[in-house]
């Protein structure tokens, strides 16, 4: 694992590397001190739903790369997990592609055996977030309620609204329930909006 990380870190321009399992668990990292472990766990939480979100018909991702003002952020999926890399803009892409192809071949086996480098008293961030997620039963109840106004598309609209807010229905925080409902309410026909708002208030949900 360390050798693979070192190979990635040696690509000119690479600032940091973090390797995660599919469940969002950070298994290895090499980042400058300014990026503490809590921040890297947060990185896992942000990227973990990607494999779940992207529909099968989208095909397999080679990589995703967000371009910021001075830096690039890569998401590179491998069997059993993924690699996040932050680099400068001048990263040589042919070297990156070759290195990552080799990494993708070797990493799945190492991920199977890997354990997270976590301190004993440290709470896993993902578990904490799932704990604060909107309960599935409440979401199903709301989907059923909205189906009266949106028809059978209600469940799809909920899923889409969660995605638009940057979450999935499995990790949508309770604190964002109102935002989720507002997104879904926007899809309700205009003449029914007031009625739906009133009924939601009756459920003790203020939107």
């Amino acid at each position, binding site marked *: 694992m360390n050798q693979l990380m070192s190979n990635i870190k040696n690509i000119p321009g690479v600032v940091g590397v973090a390797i995660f399992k599919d469940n969002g668990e950070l298994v290895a990292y090499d980042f400058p001190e300014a*990026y503490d472990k809590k*921040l890297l766990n*947060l*990185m896992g939480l*942000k*990227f973990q739903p*990607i494999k779940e*979100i*992207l*529909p099968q*018909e*989208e*095909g*397999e*991702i*080679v*990589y*995703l*790369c*967000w*371009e*910021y*003002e*001075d*830096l690039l*952020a890569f998401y590179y999926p491998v069997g059993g997990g993924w690699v996040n890399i*932050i680099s400068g803009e001048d990263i040589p*892409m042919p070297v990156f592609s070759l290195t990552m192809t080799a990494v993708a071949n070797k990493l799945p086996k190492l991920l199977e055996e890997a354990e997270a480098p976590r301190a004993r008293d440290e709470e896993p961030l993902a578990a904490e977030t799932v704990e604060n997620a909107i309960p599935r039963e409440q979401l199903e109840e709301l989907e059923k309620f909205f189906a009266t106004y949106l028809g059978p598309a209600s469940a799809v609209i909920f899923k*889409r609204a969660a*995605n*638009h*807010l*940057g979450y999935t229905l499995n990790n949508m925080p309770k604190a964002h329930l109102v935002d989720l409902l507002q*997104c879904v309410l*926007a899809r309700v026909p205009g003449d029914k909006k007031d009625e739906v708002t009133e009924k939601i208030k009756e459920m003790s949900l203020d939107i």
Partner: protein
Amino acid sequence: MGDSRNDSLAGLSNMLNSLKEIESYIITDMEGRIHMASTENYDENTINSSIYLWVTGSRFGGEFNMGEPANLIYYLKTRKMLVQKYNDYLIILNLIDIAKFPVFKRKLYDLFNRII
């Protein structure tokens, strides 16, 4: 205001049509409403996943003090896509297989500079 928005979209559309690397494009807002598309054969899932990835990148950029992303390369085994923010819109560009991202981005930004 409506007219100026339409003019702006028409200008953008003309510009995108002039780039040979673009196979098809969709101009959407962050709520997933489609404002213009070069094809009627677009996939809702592509729009949703592009918006999701954009939001993820924006939050990630905020938490890591990198700011807002300018664009997202969405490179799949079956196709190449570039998601580009333009004012309040997201432009989802489906590129031809032989397109090179750095070259294409340079061309795109040159054209953006001309219409701004």
